[in-house]
């Protein structure tokens, strides 16, 4: 048995065409391929051209691999019937595609003259900088002019955002934001049969159905390309149909048979979604030729007979036969067509290898985390609402004009800041579970739905994956979402939506697509013994690990208002994905040192006041310009540090300067280094767990690597899940601990110097 299955499949097609007998009568190009079909002979030939071109690209990728000139061999071979969707959908129908979409891509690109789909795909496989969407950062099916946001995921994590875009289409139009899409646009989202088992797939499909149930439009066409295999694991017989054929609010259609039958079924599905504005599930049986990828030795898990049987189902072979038998094309025509495609694609592949690649780190990371501070500051300051409109948004009483009391809590400041932002930025939408009617678990979003309407402030189902999917989809078309994940621990349920999807979009589209958002997350510990670990999660490691993600963690109300404006401006201007982590325990805290001192209340800073990364807060005891010690902290830790600062001065004569990081990603590294230069010791107070969950490691490492000779030390939470009740204090950092660590740092420094 030969393992060159590529040659065998190619020869099977050539062999068939060489001996094929022309159809009895030739079919007029405008005649249907089958009576009653909406696919004409010409259309079928066009599809065949696209399919053959896609196949030739796959062959070229494997050919180049032999000389290590290509870097991606997951092919579309056997899936080329998805080309019907490329032809049936419009290029203003956003498409989130499976990685075997070569046929679809070729057919879709045909709708836009001047496209060079085969060459673009080849530039992808050779990882060239000239590739128009990802510039060699990944092989993707993507294109800005063809409205195909690039997908890199092989784990169905693109379904939630596709659903989110479908969810947002009508809503965005009502807000006057169309994203360049017509009112009858539909969303296409394709994936494989094995991927249909992913939680993300099931989550997106569930939410699509849920939307229908509550009366919302959901124009999405899910396409499951069923090759009955997940790498080496067979999908159980009938699994896809059994799972999806009978789900409420989901129209299931099976596109099987000859190419014209597949065309007709797909056309019906598209028509249904476009007219009914409801989801459909198109089940498209395919075969997978040549293993999962070039490196996959299929014979290790499939018998020779199984492989041969699979290859016999090659759609190119079947479509060629259909065209010839119906008289839609002659064998000679198809021989010439195939030869033409192979020749030009192989030549184009050689040309692609001569194109430049990404060479420097700077080139690679350029689109990952764009930041234009001056423009962001400008964006944070504008627009300025006319006084009357602003007053109206606050129901007649501006927060800064309040008397008795003037000061507000963190929650109160956030509520006012959200009101201001929603009032001056019509593209903002705010959503999550309980945020609308209830006003949030902690009242942070209280009254916002009443003020701004259910189109902009709305409750969602309890599914973090879908909440972040809706955020991404909405952001794709120009909305600026403020989703809320109810608790920090819950974000782990959907982390890949930020990590693998939202944070990567600008990177893999070279900034051509963006999904700006500010994800509000109540979190961290210290809820006075309430809630247990899920409601007191104290780890931000997973968020800080995401390249390009901005992490804001305000501690005080006035900071929170100003940071929220900065965060929204970064999203709006530079397309950034921001997580805005709000310390729950400080939401309603009023006091700092003693009960009733009101030390944690702040006056509301009205717009345009804002804060951006690199701007930490500095706290000194009056009249102590030369501190002994720098205490670095954030969130609850800031409050503990300020308490410790007073006790250190009063009880021990130690002067500490306290620095509030405010932004945990990126860290205010320059300020930290500069402040460190003015003291003899640095203490990092990190309320997150000791091992990599917080920022202490990064700060101390950076100071050490930058040559700091000061004593560098930290206090951190214990490596434990947070227990229920009073036992929480056994694992969390307390003021006493901060004081003790500060004294130790200063003392050791003093003795080392003497």
């Amino acid at each position, binding site marked *: 048995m030969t393992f060159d299955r590529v040659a065998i499949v190619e020869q099977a097609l050539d062999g068939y065409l060489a001996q094929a007998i022309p159809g009895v009568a030739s079919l007029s190009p405008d005649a249907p391929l089958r009576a009653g079909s909406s696919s004409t002979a010409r259309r079928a030939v066009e599809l065949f051209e696209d399919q053959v071109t896609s196949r030739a690209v796959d062959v070229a990728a494997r050919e180049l691999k032999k000389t290590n000139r290509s870097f991606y061999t997951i092919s579309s071979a056997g899936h080329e019937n998805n080309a019907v969707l490329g032809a049936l959908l419009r290029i203003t129908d956003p498409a989130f595609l499976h990685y075997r979409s070569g046929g679809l891509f070729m057919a879709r690109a045909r709708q836009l003259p*001047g496209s060079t789909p085969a060459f673009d795909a080849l530039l992808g496989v050779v990882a060239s900088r000239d590739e128009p969407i990802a510039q060699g950062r990944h092989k993707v099916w993507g294109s800005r002019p063809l409205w195909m946001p690039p997908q890199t995921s092989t784990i169905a994590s693109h379904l939630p955002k596709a659903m989110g875009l479908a969810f947002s289409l009508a809503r965005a139009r009502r807000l006057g934001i169309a994203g360049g899409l017509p009112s009858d646009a539909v969303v296409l989202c394709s994936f494989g049969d094995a991927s249909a088992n992913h939680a993300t797939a099931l989550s997106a499909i569930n939410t699509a159905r849920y939307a229908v149930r509550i009366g919302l439009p959901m124009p999405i066409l899910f396409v499951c390309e069923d090759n009955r295999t997940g790498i080496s694991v067979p999908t159980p017989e009938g699994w896809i149909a059994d799972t999806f054929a009978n789900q409420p609010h989901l129209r299931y259609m099976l596109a099987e048979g000859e190419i014209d039958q597949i065309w007709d079924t797909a056309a019906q599905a598209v028509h249904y979604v476009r007219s009914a504005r409801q989801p459909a599930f198109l089940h498209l049986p395919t075969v997978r030729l040549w293993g999962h990828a070039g490196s996959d030795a299929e014979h290790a898990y499939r018998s020779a007979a199984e492989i041969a049987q699979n290859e016999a189902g090659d759609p190119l072979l079947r479509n060629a036969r259909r065209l010839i038998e119906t008289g839609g094309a002659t064998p000679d025509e198809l021989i010439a*067509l195939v030869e033409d495609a192979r020749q030009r694609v192989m030549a184009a592949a050689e*040309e692609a290898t*001569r194109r430049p690649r990404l060479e420097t780190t700077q080139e690679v990371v350029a689109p990952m985390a764009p930041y234009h501070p001056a423009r962001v500051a400008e964006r944070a300051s504008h627009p300025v609402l006319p006084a009357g409109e602003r007053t109206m948004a606050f129901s007649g009483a501006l927060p800064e004009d309040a008397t008795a009391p003037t000061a507000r809590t963190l929650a109160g400041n956030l509520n006012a800041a959200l009101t201001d932002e929603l009032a001056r930025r019509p593209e903002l939408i705010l959503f999550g579970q309980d945020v609308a009617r209830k006003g949030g678990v902690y009242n942070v979003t209280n009254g916002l739905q009443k003020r701004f309407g259910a189109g902009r402030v709305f409750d969602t189902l309890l599914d973090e994956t879908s909440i972040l999917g809706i955020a991404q989809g909405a952001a794709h078309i120009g909305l600026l979402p403020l989703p809320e994940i109810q608790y920090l621990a819950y974000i782990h349920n959907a982390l890949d939506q930020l990590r693998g999807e939202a944070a990567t979009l600008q990177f893999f589209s070279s900034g051509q697509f963006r999904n700006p958002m500010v994800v509000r997350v109540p979190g961290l510990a210290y809820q006075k013994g309430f809630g247990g670990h899920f409601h007191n999660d104290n780890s931000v490691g997973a968020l800080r690990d995401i390249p390009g993600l901005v992490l804001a963690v305000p501690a005080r109300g006035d900071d929170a208002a100003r940071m929220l404006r900065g965060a929204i401006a970064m999203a709006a201007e530079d397309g950034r994905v921001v997580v805005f982590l709000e310390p729950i325990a400080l939401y309603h805290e009023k006091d700092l040192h003693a009960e009733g001192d009101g030390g944690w209340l702040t006056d509301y800073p009205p717009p345009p006041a804002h804060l951006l990364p690199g701007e930490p807060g500095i706290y000194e005891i009056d009249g102590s310009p030369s501190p002994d010690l720098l205490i670095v902290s954030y969130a609850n830790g800031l409050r503990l540090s300020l308490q410790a600062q007073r006790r250190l001065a009063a009880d021990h004569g130690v002067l500490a300067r306290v620095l509030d990081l405010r932004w945990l990603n990126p860290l205010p590294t320059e300020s930290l280094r500069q402040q460190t230069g003015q003291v003899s010791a640095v203490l990092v107070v990190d309320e997150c767990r000791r091992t990599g969950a917080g920022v202490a490691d990064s700060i101390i490492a950076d100071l050490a690597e930058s040559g700091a000779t000061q004593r560098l030390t930290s206090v951190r939470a214990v490596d434990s899940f947070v227990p229920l009740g009073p036992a929480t204090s056994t694992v969390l950092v307390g003021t006493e601990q901060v004081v003790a660590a500060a004294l130790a740092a200063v003392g050791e420094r003093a003795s080392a110097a003497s």
Partner: protein
Amino acid sequence: MTGMPRAVIVCPGRGSYTAASLGSLPADHPIVPRAEQLRSEYGLEPLLELDGVPRFDPARHLRPANASPLIFLTSLLDAEQAAADHSITAVIGNSLGWYSALAVAGALPFDDAFRLVQEMAIFQEEALGDGGQGGQVIYPLLDAEWAPVPDLRAAVSDVLTDGPGTGGRVFESIDLGGYVVLAGDERGVAHLLDRLPPVRIGERLVALRLALHGPYHTPLVEHVAELAADRLGNLRWQRPTVTLIDGRGACWSPWSTDPGALRDYTLGEQVTTPFRFAVSLRVALREHAPDVLVLPGPGNSLGGICGQLVVIEGYRGIRTRAEFEETQRSTAPVVLSMRR
């Protein structure tokens, strides 16, 4: 077919027939007398006579009704010759060259292609006849080393945005990559010549108005499209025998072309919207990756333009004018001009 170099044929446009082109037509080739026969129906002077005079007379030779068929015939004959030792993978053309391309690719029988060329030229003259109906202005976008000059692009953008005011209109007409051809009515042309900063190219100062050219590929020649629809309705359009790439960069294959759609494009959209030659060549280079671009005559008006586009594209790793010229001197030039 295999073994021969894979070639894209690039047919030139209206400015290609010059003094050096006199004597291009072979009287003994059978299509020449056929062309003369077809031409006689229009009462126009014989092409061989025009081609055979000792002195080039711009007013006579550059007349659309004369220049167009001369160019068309020369291109067709050269392309036929090129096909003998090349494997033709695609055919493109610039402006009038699109009509030649249609004939080279067999999308129209010779007689019909000739009629198309001849009558379109007559329609264009009818438009020009009243005088003062506008024209085309060419302007460079690259420096002498063929590197983009952003200021020139900006000047073009400004002159299009900041139009000539009441009663005047300007448009983009042809995208040549290294040059842009703008067009307008008379007031528009004056505006273009007045407002585009002069650039020295060789001995010439441009912007330059193209002699006896109308405002082609703009809405100003809508009437040409109307005449074409009216009088050229019976041309026998057919599927080409080799892929054509049009002035939008759309491909017309031998297997799936709808001849009716090809007619609609050629007589309609192609006439009144910008002709993006640069896009058609880019599609040819990327999707067909030929060994060589073969440029039939007359003249070599597209030689430098194709060279510039090769450099812009970085085709075959050629990224500068010097690299292009070095390649041209090698045994494997990327542009093969059949005439000089």
